[in-house]
């Protein structure tokens, strides 16, 4: 059990010369002899394991039998746990056992939650699908509201849209197009398979709600941001509508 445990002579090495005499005497009376360093290592191990918070070297020494040298025991203990599933870590001047950083994933349980895309994201996505390749300015023009970076980023991250080539217009703006993932998700062979306006109308999709913003004078140019302030009141109700 104590293969690596060095013998007590090493603990003497840490003694200052003037202590030598008294230490020698104390040693004579075996009652006050410090336990072998391997035993001290076990003690440090047990204390650190059971303690509800990190323990300082002073505290360790105070709890261990007289003459123990927790600092030295810690050196051996740290070494013993090198490369193990848990490791000795120093927090301030206290010590604690921690899960090895590469095993952190074992302490996590992933739960996946599926949510409906926000209305802003759906509309942006629809415009990209129907008008691709399309620039951000064009999306804003079509939607009549500005498009937040977050919405575009979300769609990019979902890999439903990607960057297309730049438009040959002043400023050479970047365009967006839908991806293969997008087509796969919506069961489309190509973006051309998306129903046209006439078909939407025939399906009743164009008439199934009152025209939005039919109140005159409603400022239309506000940023719509899905998750931000300034959402037009009518937008709020159905961010996650079915």
């Amino acid at each position, binding site marked *: 059990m104590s293969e690596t445990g060095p013998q007590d002579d090493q603990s003497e090495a840490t003694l200052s010369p003037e202590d030598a005499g008294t230490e020698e005497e104390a040693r004579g009376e075996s009652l006050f002899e410090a336990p072998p360093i391997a035993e001290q290592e076990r003690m440090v191990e047990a204390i650190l394991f059971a303690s509800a918070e990190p323990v300082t070297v002073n505290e360790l020494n105070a709890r261990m039998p007289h003459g123990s040298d927790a600092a030295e025991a810690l050196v051996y203990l740290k070494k013993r746990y090198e490369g193990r599933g848990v490791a000795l870590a120093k927090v301030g001047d206290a010590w604690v056992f921690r899960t090895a950083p590469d095993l952190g994933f074992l302490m996590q349980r992933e739960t996946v939650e599926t949510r409906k895309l926000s209305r802003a994201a759906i509309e942006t996505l629809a415009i990209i699908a129907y008008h691709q390749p399309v620039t951000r300015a064009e999306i804003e023009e079509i939607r009549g509201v500005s498009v937040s970076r977050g919405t575009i980023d979300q769609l990019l991250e979902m890999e439903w849209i990607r960057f297309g080539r730049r438009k040959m217009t002043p400023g050479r703006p970047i365009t967006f197009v839908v991806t293969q993932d997008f087509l796969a998700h*919506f069961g489309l062979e190509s973006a051309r398979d998306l129903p046209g306006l006439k078909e939407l109308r025939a399906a009743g999709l164009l008439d199934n709600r009152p025209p939005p913003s039919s109140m005159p004078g409603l400022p239309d140019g506000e940023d719509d941001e899905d998750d931000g302030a300034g959402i037009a009141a009518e937008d709020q109700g159905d961010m996650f509508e079915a």
Partner: protein
Amino acid sequence: MSDNLFHEIEQDERSRVAERVAAEALIVDVDGYEGPLDLLLTLSRTQKVDLRKISILQLAEQYLKFVEKARELRIELAADYLVMAAWLAFLKSRLLLPPDPSEDGPSGEELAAHLAFQLERLQAMRDVAARLMARSRLGRDFFARGIPETMERVRKVTYTATLLDLMQGYARIRTKDEFRPYALDRESIFSLEEALERMRSLIGFAGDWMDISSYMPKGFGTDPAKRRSATASTFAAALELAKEGKLEIKQSEVFAPIQVRRRKEEDGR
């Protein structure tokens, strides 16, 4: 109760005294006894033999004496103590009298054996209970991890939409397009601010009365919408400047042209 048995016990004066002391102790502590079986077990210790070799007859005697004494001291004994006393008296008679062939049921020996078994079993349970409690125990002798890590729940959100969502979204936009809401047409508007600015810069030169329409901006005279807007804002600007004391306004009659001129300094004083 048989006198014989009483004599037997009384023969040994010392044991009698010891028993009396024990009995009194028992009575004083009667509340501390957990039922008749517990009391029997305690009494049985005075026999100083293995429970397996215990004399149930003698134990029954001891118990009955205890109950007797309790009565003398007018100590109310719980019903189960008395039930046990009655049963032990019955057991004693069974053990002492020759078996009555006409009587059914277990023999006195069988009953005694079971009582002995019960006592032994209770004692055994007490012994193992003590051994159990003397074991190394969690939180006293050995310890669990002091800083357990809780399983972290990582919530991963994925978003989804259906083709219908997509088409409805698109339809919404196109619908919005067709029913474009009323919005201010900035191009045909001449704002009050613009009018003010224009008048301020021109008024310095207007020492004489001039028709207010001469202050209208270029290009706003022909288009009716533009003209309306420019007229209104120029008139409002004129009123504003008059209020500031920089301009005078006059109109000779209703619907006559409105005239303005710079207000002269000396007039103000």
